[in-house]
C-alpha cells in the first residue's frame, strides 16, 4: 500500500488532519482549542484505520481522544474562573497576536520542510521495508496469542509494556502528590439530575461489558489491555460524575487496584527467570494463560489509573490513594 501513487482519499484525510491540528493549535479561545483537538482525535482515528492499524485506531479513539479529551474538557470548564486569562474575549489565548502568528507560521513551515526531507530520505533509498514483520509472523505459533500486535506487546517486547505501565503508575503518583496532605474536600454529594443517575445505572454495566469484550478480543483481533482500560476508565468516570463512584473509604481498594497490574507483571517476570533462565520468559505451553491473566489485571490497573488522574484533576470526590 505504501508506494502506489497517493489517492484522493489520502490527500483529503491528510489535509483534514493538518487543518484540524492548525485549528486546535491556533484557536483564540481555550474551549475552541479543545473542541478542535477532539475533532482532530476523530480524524486521527480514521487516519490510523486508513493506514491499516486498527489497534492504533481503537487506542486513539479510546485513549487519545476519549480520556485525553475528557481531561482537557474538564480542565477548561471546571478550572478556577479567574484562571482563564483575562482578554477581550473570555478565555482568549494570550500571545496570539499577528506578529507572533507570522513568525510562528514561518518557523513552522521551515521546520516542517526540514523534517519532511529527513523523513523522505529515511523512507527512500535502501530502506528496510517490513522490518521485523517476518520475524514476528514466523514465531506466532509459540507466542500464546494469535494477534501479532498483542503478541509483540505482551510476549516478544513485554519489557516495554512493563515500563510503560510503570510510567502510568508514576503519573498517578505525581498527580496525587500535588493534592498535598489534606484530603480533597468532598462536596456533599449534591442530588444529581435524575436522568444522569438513571443513565449511569444503565450504561455502567454495559460499558464494563464492552471493556471485558475488548480485553478478551485482544488475543485474536485488535483490542487488549490499554483500549479496555480506557473503556473501563470511561465507565468509572461516568459513575463518579453521577455520584455513584467509589467514595473516600474506598481509597485502599483503589490503591490495591492500581498496583495489582504492574505487580502481576513483575511476578511473571521473576517466574520467567526462575523457570526459563531469562526475565519475562514465557513457556509456550503457559504463555496464553499467563498473557490473558496479566492483561486482565493490567486493564484493571490502567482503568483505575486513568480515572484517578481524571479525579485528581477536578479534586474529585474520591480520596485518591
Amino acid at each position, binding site marked *: 500500500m505504501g508506494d502506489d501513487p497517493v489517492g484522493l482519499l489520502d490527500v483529503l484525510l491528510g489535509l483534514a488532519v493538518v487543518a484540524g491540528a492548525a*485549528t486546535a493549535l491556533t484557536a483564540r479561545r481555550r474551549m475552541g482549542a479543545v473542541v478542535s483537538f477532539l475533532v482532530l482525535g476523530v480524524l486521527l482515528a480514521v487516519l490510523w484505520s486508513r493506514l491499516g492499524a486498527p489497534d492504533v485506531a481503537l487506542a486513539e479513539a479510546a485513549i487519545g481522544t476519549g480520556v485525553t479529551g475528557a481531561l482537557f474538557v474538564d480542565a477548561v470548564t471546571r478550572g478556577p474562573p479567574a484562571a482563564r486569562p483575562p482578554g477581550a474575549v473570555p478565555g482568549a489565548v494570550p500571545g496570539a497576536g499577528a506578529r507572533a502568528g507570522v513568525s510562528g507560521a514561518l518557523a513552522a513551515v521551515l521546520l516542517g520542510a526540514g523534517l519532511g526531507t529527513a523523513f523522505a530520505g529515511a523512507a527512500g533509498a535502501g530502506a528496510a521495508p517490513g522490518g521485523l514483520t517476518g520475524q514476528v509472523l514466523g514465531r506466532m505459533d509459540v507466542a500464546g496469542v494469535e494477534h501479532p500486535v498483542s503478541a509483540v506487546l505482551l510476549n516478544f517486547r513485554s519489557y516495554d509494556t512493563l515500563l510503560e505501565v510503570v510510567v502510568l503508575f508514576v503519573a498517578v503518583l505525581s498527580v496525587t502528590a500535588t493534592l498535598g496532605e489534606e484530603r480533597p474536600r468532598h462536596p456533599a454529594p449534591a*442530588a444529581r439530575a435524575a436522568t444522569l443517575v438513571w443513565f449511569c445505572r444503565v450504561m455502567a454495566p454495559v460499558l464494563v461489558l464492552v471493556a471485558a469484550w475488548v480485553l478478551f478480543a485482544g488475543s485474536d483481533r485488535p483490542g487488549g489491555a490499554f483500549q479496555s482500560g480506557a473503556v473501563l476508565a470511561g465507565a468509572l468516570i461516568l459513575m463518579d460524575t453521577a455520584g455513584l463512584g467509589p467514595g473516600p473509604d474506598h481509597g485502599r481498594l483503589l490503591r490495591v487496584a492500581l498496583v495489582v497490574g504492574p505487580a502481576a507483571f513483575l511476578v511473571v517476570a521473576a517466574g520467567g527467570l526462575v523457570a526459563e533462565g531469562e526475565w519475562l520468559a514465557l513457556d509456550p505451553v503457559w504463555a496464553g494463560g499467563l498473557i490473558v491473566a496479566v492483561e486482565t489485571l493490567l486493564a484493571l490497573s490502567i482503568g483505575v489509573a486513568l480515572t484517578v488522574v481524571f479525579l485528581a484533576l477536578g479534586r474529585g470526590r474520591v480520596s485518591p490513594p
Partner: protein
Amino acid sequence: MTAGLLLELLSAVLVVAGTGFFTVGTLGLVRLPDLRTRLHALTKADNLGLGLVVLGLVLQAGSAGAAAKLLVVWFLAMPASAVVAHLMSRGGGLSAAGSAADGPGTPGEGGSGGG
C-alpha cells in the same frame, strides 16, 4: 441488476443520506443562535444521520456478528446523546438544581471552533 449490485447501491444511498443529515446538523450548529436550538439541531440530525450510516454499513457487513456490533454502536450513541442534550439544556445541570453557569438562552461557550 444482481442482488449484490442492488445491495451495494442501496447501502451507498443510505450512507450518503446519512452524511447529508450530519451536514445539516453541523449547519444548524453553526447558524442557530442559542444553546437549545443548537442542541435541537444536533441531536435530531446527527442521530438520524448515524442511524442511516449504520444501516448502510449493516448491508455491507460480512457476518451477522459485525452487523450486530454496528447496531450496538447506534444503540449506545442514541441514549448517550439524548441524556447529554437533556443535561446541557438544563444549564450544564450536573446537579438537580441546574447551576445556571451558562443558563438557558445565552449562547454556550463551546462550538465556536467546530471542525
